[in-house]
């Protein structure tokens, strides 16, 4: 066995096999990334598209999960584009592809021809890092506007309220004389524009053509003649209408009522989560992840904890999370999945015009789950519950209110009874009722069946994830494809539906909730068995020593695959912190899905993707 280590590796590790094959095929262009703590291959930009095509077609890595850029200022002075590719639906670990470009003339070939799902992600890298992608058909800013000066994720870019590169700030202690950031940088003077930019003669780049049709008006003469002719018309849906699910805009080109083109416009809620993440220490990022997809803060926490634990595991004294911690984590995450799917179904019905009654029925049980989160983690939605190596605190014995304010009403229940009641009785009943209530409703069937179809090959190409991917007939679930936590020992099926329309996405969410309840039922005895066991491995440290390297931690969030790409340079703060937001990347498919449908279907299709703007805009 020891005589031929190469042969052993090739059989055991599909990624090593793929890398060996690529090195044989492109000896000049492909080198292995041999930096300490890094994996994957570094590809010469010249042959990036060629290698990417081979990776997709010959090796079967057909799914581009995440594409993001890292600025290695002072560590080689280059930008590195990192692509995480997977085999879908086969599963397994990622093949990581990297391409480098000098900082002063940052240009890389676009891989959009290989993986169309790179569309928004390359635009994001262009917007935030300033890398130009040759061959990208629509390379313009996506999260920021044209009047924004510079590319904020570059390491030498400083925000208006810049204080220091990394937290903790020295001004807070021991001489922490308080002042407000806006006192240093008052309103009106806190905005910088690019050179030569004036607000007066500003027209948003790429938006002018959107309005071309408007001046023409509608020719009434033609409308009254037989053989109805219609004009092309551009309509702005959003940014502020309840059915756009937040501040999200869709520029829709209509022909009559039929959609010819749809361009999503986003970034209204952008706060540069990733830059904040680089300023933060590793632990400080945890509460910030709550604010991504604020419906599912528990699973956001888990994804980030997994990524950092993967980095920590490169170090010498790493202890994996305890078993009890894993049980509690899965409990929280699956409850979150039910919450999120209930929410998605409820508000899909809102989008279909059933105003609030179904939505309120759907989210009634959510209250109970949030009450549980509040009693365990301290907050209903901003849970901040996971820690590296475990969780914040064990489940309390009782879910009990403590009267403090005038008129406080107290409730008091044993936690495990409460959980057992919810999991065994109330949730299954609520799901059945929802099923009864909606599934055979003729209006829903007519509005949803055959609308917004996303064929499986398109779903994979556009990097769609989660319910969107599985409703298109691709049985891919990260919990099974690349298992984490205790999912391997749990008994559940990957829900899958085959028509890829709104109706199937709705049905899939119902299926998935049933599977979640199935998982939760298996967790109850495990919770009882592990009672009293430690909930965190090792000692709790507020600044853990994170070894140098990179890690990509991903979880099956209710909205889809949520990934965190974290690079550590051995310091207190992450060197790079990137979030692969499922809502954001799922929107890539929105335009193609709506094409040819009626304007009234747009909002329903958007609702069936189930986006949360906190995560889209980051």
């Amino acid at each position, binding site marked *: 066995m020891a005589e031929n280590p190469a042969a052993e590796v090739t059989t055991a590790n599909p990624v090593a096999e793929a890398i060996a094959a690529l090195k044989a095929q492109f000896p000049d262009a492909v080198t292995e990334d041999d930096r300490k703590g890094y994996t994957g291959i570094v590809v010469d930009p010249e042959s990036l598209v060629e290698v990417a095509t081979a990776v997709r077609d010959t090796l079967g890595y057909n799914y581009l999960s995440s594409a993001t850029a890292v600025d290695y200022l002072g560590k080689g002075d280059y930008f590195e584009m990192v692509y995480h590719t997977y085999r879908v639906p086969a599963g397994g670990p990622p093949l990581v592809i990297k391409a480098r470009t000098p900082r002063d003339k940052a240009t890389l070939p676009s891989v959009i021809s290989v993986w169309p799902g790179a569309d928004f992600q390359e635009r994001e890298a262009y917007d935030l890092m300033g890398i130009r992608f040759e061959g990208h058909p629509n390379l313009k800013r996506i999260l920021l506007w044209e009047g924004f000066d510079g590319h904020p994720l570059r390491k030498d870019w400083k925000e208006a309220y810049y204080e220091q590169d990394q937290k903790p700030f020295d001004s807070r202690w021991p001489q922490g004389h308080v002042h407000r950031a806006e006192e240093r940088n008052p309103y009106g003077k806190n905005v910088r524009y690019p050179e030569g930019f004036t607000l007066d003669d500003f027209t948003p780049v790429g938006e002018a053509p959107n309005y071309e049709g408007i001046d023409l008006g509608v020719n009434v003469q033609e409308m009254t003649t037989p053989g109805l002719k219609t004009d092309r018309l551009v309509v702005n849906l959003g940014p502020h209408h309840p059915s756009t699910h937040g501040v999200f805009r869709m520029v829709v080109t209509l022909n009559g009522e039929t959609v010819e083109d749809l361009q999503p416009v986003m970034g209204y809620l952008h706060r540069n989560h990733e830059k904040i993440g680089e300023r933060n220490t590793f632990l400080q990022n945890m509460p910030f992840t709550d604010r991504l997809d604020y419906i599912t803060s528990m699973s956001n926490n888990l994804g980030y904890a997994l990524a950092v634990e993967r980095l920590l595991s490169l170090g010498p004294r790493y202890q994996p999370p305890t078993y009890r911690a894993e049980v509690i984590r899965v409990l929280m995450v699956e409850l979150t999945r039910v919450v999120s799917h209930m929410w998605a179904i409820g508000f899909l019905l809102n989008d279909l015009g059933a105003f609030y009654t179904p939505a309120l029925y759907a989210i009634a049980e959510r209250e109970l789950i949030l009450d549980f989160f509040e009693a365990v983690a301290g907050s209903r939605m901003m849970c901040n519950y996971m820690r590296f190596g475990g969780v914040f605190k064990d489940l309390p014995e009782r879910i009990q209110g403590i009267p403090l304010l005038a008129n406080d009403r107290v409730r008091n229940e044993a936690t495990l009874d409460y959980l057992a009641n919810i999991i065994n009785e109330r949730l299954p009943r609520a799901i059945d009722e929802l099923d009864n209530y909606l599934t055979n409703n003729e209006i829903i069937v007519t509005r949803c069946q055959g609308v917004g179809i996303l064929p499986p090959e398109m779903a994979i190409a556009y990097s769609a994830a989660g319910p969107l991917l599985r409703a298109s007939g691709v049985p891919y679930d990260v919990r099974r494809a690349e298992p984490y936590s205790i999912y391997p020992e749990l008994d559940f099926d990957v829900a899958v539906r085959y028509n890829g329309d709104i109706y199937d996405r709705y049905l899939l969410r119902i299926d998935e909730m049933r599977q979640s309840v199935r998982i939760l039922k298996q967790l109850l005895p495990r919770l009882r068995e592990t009672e009293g066991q430690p909930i965190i491995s090792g000692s*709790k440290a507020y600044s853990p020593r994170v070894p140098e390297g990179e890690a990509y931690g991903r979880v099956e969030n209710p909205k889809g695959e949520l990934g965190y790409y974290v690079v550590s340079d051995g310091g207190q703060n992450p060197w790079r912190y990137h979030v692969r937001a499922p809502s954001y990347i799922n929107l890539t498919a929105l335009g193609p899905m709506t094409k040819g449908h009626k304007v009234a279907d747009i909002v329903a299709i958007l609702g069936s993707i189930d986006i949360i703007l906190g995560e889209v805009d980051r």
Partner: protein
Amino acid sequence: MYGLGILKGMGVTLKHFLDTYIEDLRFLGKGKRTDVAFNLRQSGSNQRLGLFTVEYPEEKIAVPERFRFIPFLVINNLDAEEDPGKIWCTSCGICAKVCPPQCIWIVRGTDPETGRPKPEPEEFYIDIDICMNCGLCAEFCPFDAIKMDHDYELASYDRTTHHIFDKARLSKEFRYWRSIAPTISAEEAEARGGWEHKDVLKEKAKAARTADKATGAS
């Protein structure tokens, strides 16, 4: 039959509509808004039917122990025998370092005679507009001196003058912490080895040891 699905759905709506009234009937004459009724109608019990509206602010749901909303600083009870009102904070600065949005500002105290730092904050500020209620300060404070509050009714008319809390505004007696978090405060006291501040307990233990030695020697 076409329309059957809609009718079935309407049946669910009707059931929801009636459920709440049926539930109300169960509490007829016994009072709809008593603690017993409240406990059942807000619980996770399967017996519960229909919806129940909590009529804030006439009634409020008491928050659980771990609820976190804006930190406060623990001080000795004002009627304590030793050092009444003494602040527990030693201005070690860990909370300021761990705070994700960096809303904690501490001026470390100095001894006026020696000019050396002393374990007490001279000033302590929290900008509550910036605080994200994550609770990390309370979690990592080695002296149990900063804790998360339960009082969420903090609305005020002017943020510029009201929203930076200073030491006086932040300080609350230890008995308050015990009252809002009976189990957690008891667990912490057990870990410290007594109800007093960690340093006080250390001093006491030291004094006891020297006393023991003294009695042993004589």
